[in-house]
């Protein structure tokens, strides 16, 4: 079985400061990891993914995430937050050797990111 934990319901950051949204995962094999962002009343938008290779992954809108196998974490980061980054962020995981269907992505419960002017 695979699972994802986003331990923070909400993260508050001042504009211009660095931000981190935490994610830890559990899979039986090698993980594929994803971050998605959702703005109010919109669908989820893909931000970035880790499949293999470099542990530091760069994605859309200046976001990046670092895959840490020993800590089973995939935290989302940005060096300087913008008010427009305020949204709901989802981490998701899939075991590399699982199939499609219900063995697809498992999502965390989401973290509200609030950037204060």
């Amino acid at each position, binding site marked *: 079985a695979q699972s994802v934990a986003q331990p923070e319901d909400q993260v508050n950051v001042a504009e211009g400061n660095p931000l981190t949204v935490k994610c830890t995962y559990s899979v039986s094999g090698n993980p594929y990891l*994803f971050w998605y962002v959702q703005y109010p009343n919109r*669908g989820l938008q893909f931000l970035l*993914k880790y*499949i293999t290779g470099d542990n530091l992954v760069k994605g859309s809108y200046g976001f990046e995430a670092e895959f840490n196998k020993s800590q089973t974490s995939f935290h989302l980061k940005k060096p300087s937050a913008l008010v427009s980054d305020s949204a709901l962020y989802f981490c*998701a995981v*899939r075991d590399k050797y699982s199939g499609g269907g219900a063995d697809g992505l498992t999502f965390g*419960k989401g973290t509200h990111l609030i950037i204060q002017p």
Partner: protein
Amino acid sequence: SQTIHQWPATLVQPVGSPLSLECTVEGTSNPNLYWYRQAAGRGLQLLFYSVGIGQISSEVPQNLSASRPQDRQFILSSKKLLLSDSGFYLCASGVIYTGELFFGEGSRLTVL
């Protein structure tokens, strides 16, 4: 990349009325398709998934059903809506190899 179209975007229906939400996919063939429900702007609940035409799997018992009449068409239906069916419904299409999902813009259903 894939594009997911969902309609209607918003829907207000009385209790006991039928429902049909539609989803079509562009930019891929034979995708895995998914219906999720999201309550109160939080987590996603997987309702149905399909790996091919006419192949539907349900993740939770409920008042809803799904159908896949064509390769890139996925429909969510109900014969009689309940108040508890209110929510934000998201259709998604999956990349087979990685499991990466592409989402539609969602359909907000309010049952009164």
